[in-house]
């Protein structure tokens, strides 16, 4: 039996068919009906899915039912997808943290965690600050002046997200030719400002959102 003889394969009950398409399929079915080539069931299915050239009440009912069904299906999908988003306890655990800066000695770097990410808080020495500032910004792989990476008036405090921008390892503090950070995974070298100087990392170390609550306390997040 040739495929052109007609098929019910694409006539889905409930799917609105264009009047022209329906007429064509109806014509095919009627021919087959007349030729006696359909089973009773195929006849049933054909007859119930044929319609006239004008949209009928059946067409309206099909579209209305399918639309309401589609809205229902979409609505049912919302909670299933939304439940994977961070839940209330995770969001609460990711709330801002406060860090007391007073115990951090000159030149000391501490590591805190916020939202599961390591944060370096570096109490930079005068020498480190000067070296970070006296740099030809244009020659940097990711040009950024040091002033853009510290809070005004607090240039001795460098607060950085300690995740290498290459493939995500934690760089080691107080390492490398700039006394900054060195990533052991693939050899990226950062300065005390957290800017990439050598190695495969494309970007400077990211800055977390933070603000100074006082000279000795910051809130990260």
């Amino acid at each position, binding site marked *: 039996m040739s*495929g052109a003889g007609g098929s019910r*394969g694409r006539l889905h*009950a409930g799917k609105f068919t264009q009047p022209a398409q329906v007429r064509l399929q109806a014509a095919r079915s009627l021919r087959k009906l007349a030729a006696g080539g359909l089973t009773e*069931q195929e006849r049933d299915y054909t007859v119930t899915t044929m319609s006239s050239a004008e949209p009928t009440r059946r067409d309206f009912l099909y579209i209305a039912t399918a639309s309401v069904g589609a809205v229902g299906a979409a609505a049912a999908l919302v909670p299933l997808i939304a*439940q994977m988003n961070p*839940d209330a306890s995770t969001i609460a655990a990711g709330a801002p943290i406060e860090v007391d800066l007073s115990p951090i000695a000159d030149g000391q770097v501490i590591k805190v965690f916020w939202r599961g990410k390591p944060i370096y808080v570096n109490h930079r020495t005068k020498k480190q600050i000067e070296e970070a500032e006296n740099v030809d910004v244009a020659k940097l792989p990711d040009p950024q002046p040091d002033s853009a990476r510290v809070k005004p008036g607090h240039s001795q405090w460098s607060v950085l997200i300690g995740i290498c921008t290459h493939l995500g390892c934690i760089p080691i503090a107080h390492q490398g030719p700039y006394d900054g950070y060195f990533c052991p995974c693939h050899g990226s070298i950062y300065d005390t400002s957290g800017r990439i100087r050598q190695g495969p990392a494309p970007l400077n170390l990211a800055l977390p959102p933070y603000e100074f609550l006082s000279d000795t306390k910051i809130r990260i997040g």
Partner: protein
Amino acid sequence: MSGHSTYQPQNAFMQWMERRLPIAGLVYSSFIVYPTPRNLNYWWTFGGILSFMLAAQIVTGVVLAMHYTPHVDLAFNSVEQIMRDVNYGWLLRYLHANGASMFFLAAYIHMFRGMYYGSYKDPREVLWILGVILLLLMIMTGFMGYVLPWGQMSFWAATVITNLFSAIPLVGESIVSWLWGGYSVGNPTLNRFYSLHYLLPFVIVGVVVLHVWALHMAGQNNPAGIEPKTERDTVAFTPYATIKDGFFLVVFCILFAWFVFYIPNFLGHPDNYIPANPAVTPTHIVPEWYYLPFYAILRAIPNKLLGVMALGASIVILAFLPWLDTSKVRSARYRPLYRQFFWAFVIVCIGLGWLGSKPPEGNYVLFARIFTVYYFAYFLVILPVLGKVEKTKPLPNSIAESVLLEGKPPLGAPAPPPPLAKA
């Protein structure tokens, strides 16, 4: 289904696909043009409803499994976290818990339909037995799922049900400690129940495939209980059965939604909101409603081993139904005496369920015993005897005749004019 599908794809891609993996043809012949008896009533929609509930339980279950922790110290709190912190967690939990109840409700109705209309008779014996297997799998899955929240009821249900196996002579105790993974219900038990609770629904899916396959080999039964003889006796599955199933599924979901949104804890036991305490058994310990009839049978027998055997027998006996019922007539429509015993059986089942929720004392015990006797007598005495002595009503000549003659003048009389159809 017999032989090749009549599906003829027009689309070139579909023709290519059909030659290599004829899934579309399978769906076409099984669920679109599949010949369905034209006299099916709404009791036949529960198969589709059960398929939907299985999918719903799997989807909500998999999603809940993303947030649940199967450890005795963490499980209860992880469920509370789902209820309070996870986005829509409350909805997913209530859907899953009430979904289990709706699943069993649909299953029992489905089974009662089968018993009333003789759907278990030749050639549908294997279909029926697969159904009994599905019921057993559902019971196991439901039980293990109930243990997971690790509330008081969870823990003590686990203890009581696993202790049933200690009734087995000689090896009973070994089996119980093997099930527990320890000397009492504990963390190993919880962990393995979680694993099996995730696994069994997919086993159920596999057996459902066999169940539908067996169904399609024999064809559906119908309210008249006589096989389709000509094409006039059947209609295409789509759109008739599809829409009928879909409609009643929506009605069923309204009931489901009523529980989920307005009375989500009605079917549960408040004691399960108390974290499990191995030192204290709740005073009023009961399983969920869908196990109550079997629970009543278990408690009705005063002997431990015999009680456990009665519990097992009450389910296994269903598998023998095709051979216990000796009647040559399938449908209860034409068996007036059988019908009365059947409805008595339904009342007995519901009565056993109610009695299972009551404390085992006084008249409750008496009636539980009477009802248990009727339950087993129905299968072992009433059905075999009834088939031999009953005077059945005459069967219609065909399905089409039974449908067309309902309330109409007999064949040969002029048909009333058809109602004017609106354009």
